[in-house]
């Protein structure tokens, strides 16, 4: 649904050239929620704005929903929806008026536009406030209207730029539900976020971006496994050394270090390693106090790939 090869963009700011995006290769399948994860300034928004025809790439190729981005941006516009980070509604009009106008800007006839607006109001649960002026809306309500505006013409692909930034936890959960609903209706969703948990919980596949480049790509689970496996902490009071000796030469253990009253192990897959650890220790008569499995987070992935924590950057 989205294919890019070597997409590039630089900006000139105060005589210095900033390479915002330095060659992005992407392949997003139909019906996927694809997440773009990275710190602020990584080039996520710039990439998204290029794909949404808002800025011209300096180099590279992209095909979106079957239309060529450089040669046929008009066709791309008809087939995609785009929801900007900063909102898109005008305070003095109502959500219904905005929805009708948006549909009309896509060339949809007036009667059809009204029907689409009514359907969007229903499916996004906007009825309660859709005929009030936008200036009265809460942050979460505004965001839902923004997304409804983005999909009013039933595009094949929707680009959402940080749709949950600044929302309270409840509105965030609501937005996740909306995004999943769009996927279930067959839409391809391309979303940017700097929230790890959001990428993890919502996205089928994730690309991690840093300094204008993609540093890792895959399903959240693959990424986490690929980078560091699972972490198992074993608590064996008074027998830490013995346990370390027993486990160090096991084939499923990738890495081992002492940790307080026990050992911390990095293993390929926690689910299969844990019974083996238990058997090994039990067979040698080591009394086990506790055993814990930690899945590595996307932050661990980011840390491994960039040497920085996403939370710090």
């Amino acid at each position, binding site marked *: 649904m989205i294919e890019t090869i070597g997409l590039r963009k630089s900006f000139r700011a105060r005589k210095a050239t900033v390479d915002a995006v330095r060659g992005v290769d992407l392949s997003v399948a139909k019906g996927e929620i694809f997440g773009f994860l990275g710190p602020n300034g990584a080039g996520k928004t710039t990439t998204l704005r290029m794909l949404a025809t*808002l800025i011209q790439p300096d180099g590279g190729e992209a095909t979106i929903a079957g239309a060529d981005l450089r040669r046929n941006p008009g066709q791309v*516009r008809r087939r995609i929806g*785009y929801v*900007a980070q900063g*909102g898109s*509604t005008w305070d003095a009009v109502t959500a219904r008026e905005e929805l009708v*106008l948006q549909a009309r*800007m896509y060339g949809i006839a007036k009667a059809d536009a009204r029907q689409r607006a009514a359907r969007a109001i229903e499916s996004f649960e906007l009825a309660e406030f859709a005929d009030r002026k936008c200036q009265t809306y809460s942050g979460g309500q505004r965001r839902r209207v923004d997304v409804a*505006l983005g999909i009013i*013409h039933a595009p094949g692909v929707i680009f959402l730029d940080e749709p949950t930034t600044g929302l309270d936890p409840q509105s965030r959960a609501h937005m996740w539900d909306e995004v999943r609903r769009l996927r279930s209706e067959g839409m391809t969703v391309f979303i940017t976020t700097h929230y790890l948990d959001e990428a993890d919980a919502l996205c089928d596949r994730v690309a991690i971006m840093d300094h204008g480049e993609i540093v890792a790509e895959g399903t959240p689970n693959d990424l986490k496994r690929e980078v560091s496996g699972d972490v198992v902490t074993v608590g064996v009071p008074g027998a830490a050394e013995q346990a370390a000796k027993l486990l160090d030469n096991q084939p499923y253990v990738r890495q081992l270090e002492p940790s307080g009253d026990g050992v911390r192990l990095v293993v390929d897959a926690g689910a299969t390693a844990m019974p083996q650890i238990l058997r090994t220790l039990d067979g040698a008569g080591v009394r086990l106090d506790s055993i814990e499995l930690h899945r590595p987070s996307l932050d661990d992935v980011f840390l491994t790939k960039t040497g920085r924590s996403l939370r710090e950057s």
Partner: protein
Amino acid sequence: MKLARDTWLIFQRQMMLVLRNPVWVIVGIIQPLYYLFLFGPLLKGALRLPSAEAYRIFVPGILVQLAIFGTFFVGFALISELRAGVIERSRVTPVSRLALLLGRSLRDVVSLVVQAAIITVLSIPFGLAVGLGDALLAFAVLGLIALMLSAASYAIALKLRSEDALAPLLNTVGVPILLLSGVLLPMRYAPHWLADVAKWNPFSWAVDGSRALFAGNPGDSSVWKSLLILGVLTVLSVFWAARSFAKSVR
């Protein structure tokens, strides 16, 4: 066809916003009325002219002033729209870029012509007498000014993207344009050097043309000259602004 449809769409939305909050249209009418009531009698006395003749000079002047200052500052509204994300939302749709500009500029032209018509009618009790055809032609001159300056204002606003930069720039350009067009007093009272400078000001021609029309001389050369000069400048201004709208902006 698509351009006409899209322009109409944007125009309708913009007009709806004006009607919903017509405060700026009303302010636009009240200001020239101040001039009419509080400055007109002074002018009449100073120039020792009969009432009808004084208002024939004075009313076209304040109408051009309204056209210049009423439309040159419309860029402020566009900056608010840019900030709200409304423009970006329009730009991802296939809507005509030229329509995004023309729909807004047409709103400015229509509001201006309505304001001008109201002021003209309100001047009649003061002794103003003007033929309908002449008045309509004068409104065409005003409409061209409005279209040219609103397009220019939008183009400048798209470049600057900040009210803080826009206000001083528009004032710096707008005030000399206004003073050098003889809106308050005809340039024939000016010293030669000032009158010579004013000849290079297209709005000075617009004022002369409107005055000729209000005096009932549609055949005066200043009429066709003003229409021609303003027409050419309007085309250039709209072309420039349309390019700014179409171009990718950050």
